């Protein structure tokens, strides 16, 4: 097939562009992570921090490290963990005010204006993908709290694309809210792939529209290595892994 000769980045770019021509409710964003290719460099974690300017105590993406086997047959194993964007998200069910919901394109988002900060969803998520914004700043205690930590303009966690300002200690959203990965919606809607995907050194992350049978992700989830985390809980993650 022709696509296979292209660089995966170019393929995903093309997939993304094609998906954006469809109406939003026809898309189904999905991520596939190839664990054989992940080298545990944490570039995705850092890229996410920089892109979404997440405060202390919040990390939309982490890479879980582990060791398999016993000496001398030991191997390091890495498991990147963004939000699974579950099709049946328990975090959404428990929210007392419906502040968090699943968009038609499959991304689970939080409306910072609605969230009361009860943290029920943090406990309901089986993947630890939700965080609480306690109102801390990395640059707190330095000569000045940097501007970029206070404005969260690009973290478009809701469809309205409202602009948010974090103020230390105040209940000024998103401070006091639950926060989570949203597949970099703000980038997607401007035709760019999620930050973790473009930064991935091992080329282990793939992204696209699962409802498009021609897309790279649609082909990858047909792979025999494919699987999802905690399948038994019935959450139906839309983040897939190639084991």
């Amino acid at each position, binding site marked *: 097939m022709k696509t296979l000769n292209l660089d995966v980045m170019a393929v995903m770019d093309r997939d993304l562009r094609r998906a954006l021509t469809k109406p939003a409710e026809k898309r189904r964003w999905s991520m596939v992570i190839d664990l054989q290719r992940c080298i545990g460099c944490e570039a995705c974690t850092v890229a996410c921090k920089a892109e979404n300017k997440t405060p202390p105590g919040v990390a939309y993406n982490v890479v879980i490290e582990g060791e398999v086997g016993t000496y001398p047959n030991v191997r390091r194993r890495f498991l990147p963990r963004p939000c699974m964007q579950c099709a049946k998200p328990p975090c959404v069910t428990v929210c007392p005010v419906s502040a968090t919901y699943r968009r038609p394109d499959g991304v689970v988002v939080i409306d910072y204006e609605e969230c009361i900060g009860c943290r029920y969803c943090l406990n309901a998520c*089986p993947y630890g993908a939700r965080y609480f914004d306690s109102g801390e700043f990395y640059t707190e205690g330095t000569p000045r709290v940097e501007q970029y930590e206070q404005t969260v303009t690009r973290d478009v966690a809701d469809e309205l694309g409202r602009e948010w300002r974090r103020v230390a200690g105040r209940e000024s959203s998103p401070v006091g809210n639950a926060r989570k990965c949203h597949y970099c919606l703000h980038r997607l809607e401007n035709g760019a792939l999620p930050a973790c995907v473009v930064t991935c050194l091992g080329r282990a992350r793939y992204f696209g529209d699962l409802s498009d049978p021609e897309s790279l992700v649609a082909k990858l989830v047909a792979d025999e290595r494919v699987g999802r985390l905690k399948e038994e809980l019935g959450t139906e993650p839309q983040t897939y892994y190639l084991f």
Partner: protein
Amino acid sequence: MSKRLWIALALGVVSGGIGLFGLVDRFANGHIHANYGSGIPWALWVVFYIFFIGLSAGAFLISSLVYVFGVHRFERVGRLAVFTALICLVTALSFIWLDLGHMFRAYRTIISPNFRSPMAWMMWLYSAYFLILLGEGWFLMRRDFAAARTNGGLRGTILGVLALGTPAGGDEERRRDLRVVRILGTIGVPVAVAFHGGVGALFAVLASRPYWNTGLFPVMFLISALASGGALLTAITQLLFNRDGSLDEVVRELGRLVLLFLFVDIIMEIAEGLVSLYPSSPAHRVPFQEQMFGPYWWTFWILGLGMALLGPAILLFAKRRSPRWIGVVSLITVIGFVGVRWNIVLPGFANELIPGLRAAYVEPKLSAVYNPSAMEWLVAAGAIGAAFVLFVVGAWLFPLLPGGRAAAADKRAPRSDRSLEMVQEAE
């Protein structure tokens, strides 16, 4: 006011005063000085929330024995039970309110609820329960309020206003009021069972946390509510109001009731422990071991088993004739239940959701090690102090013990101040 009430007031004022520092910090700096957060989302304040909501449900259900099920033995403390339930409810809600990331959006759980969330059910049920408690208390005492008006003084004036124009009335009127109380109480019983079982369900529905995800949880919540709420009522009755020994028999009866509930609670704990510790699934075993042998082992052994469950069960049985012992043991039980509540919330976080998740990204607020911060303790002290003060003010203001002080003090209106039990006996 009795000396004991003054002591309670002093405790409340001191504790509340110290707590003000915490409250100021909480309002000025939000959650920055809290040790809960992403790593341990629910902590000390949630512990106190379920502690107080349990006390409230328990005290209320005991009051319903009187007003719904006609168990006359507890008649003397019926009003006290309703009032205690009210104070505990308010305290519980203030804890959970302070815990919210956006306190001033709390009303949205009422106006735009998601009824698939147990937390939304809770808020609706609490609102209903609050109104029921207010209604019950008022219908129980409004004739006394009206009678007190004639006594003048600060107390008479306040009660006169609270009577909202009710005439003092006679036995017939009181009997009619009592019927309203019975209706309210009858609605209240399923509400109380629903909300407290519901708090259990709030935890139990989370498949993500196997420690909480058990069908026993809602039942355990109810039983331990009855045990702890009963113990609180017993302690209050004996230690604050039973000066002349006229409540001795009530205290003994209450002690017996508490013993029964403790017994059932212990059986449930054993069932839960046996199933959890059986070496099948670490998802259940690890949290249970954590509460027994983790850094907070003493909340399990000393507070939980020693002070709340086994210890008091033995003492309540051995000293079942002595109201003094029963009162003191009940107080210890109530304090011990803080440990039981701690071990409902915190062990839920003992398991890593994905092995290695905690080491994957290390920051203070992501830590799984939780020790309440000074701010959290201070706020707790403040809220509990406020509860003491509210209680004492209520105990001074309201005729909580019919036939006791009220009848003695209000000699000018003897007829209208006949206690409910007298009215009922006349029926």
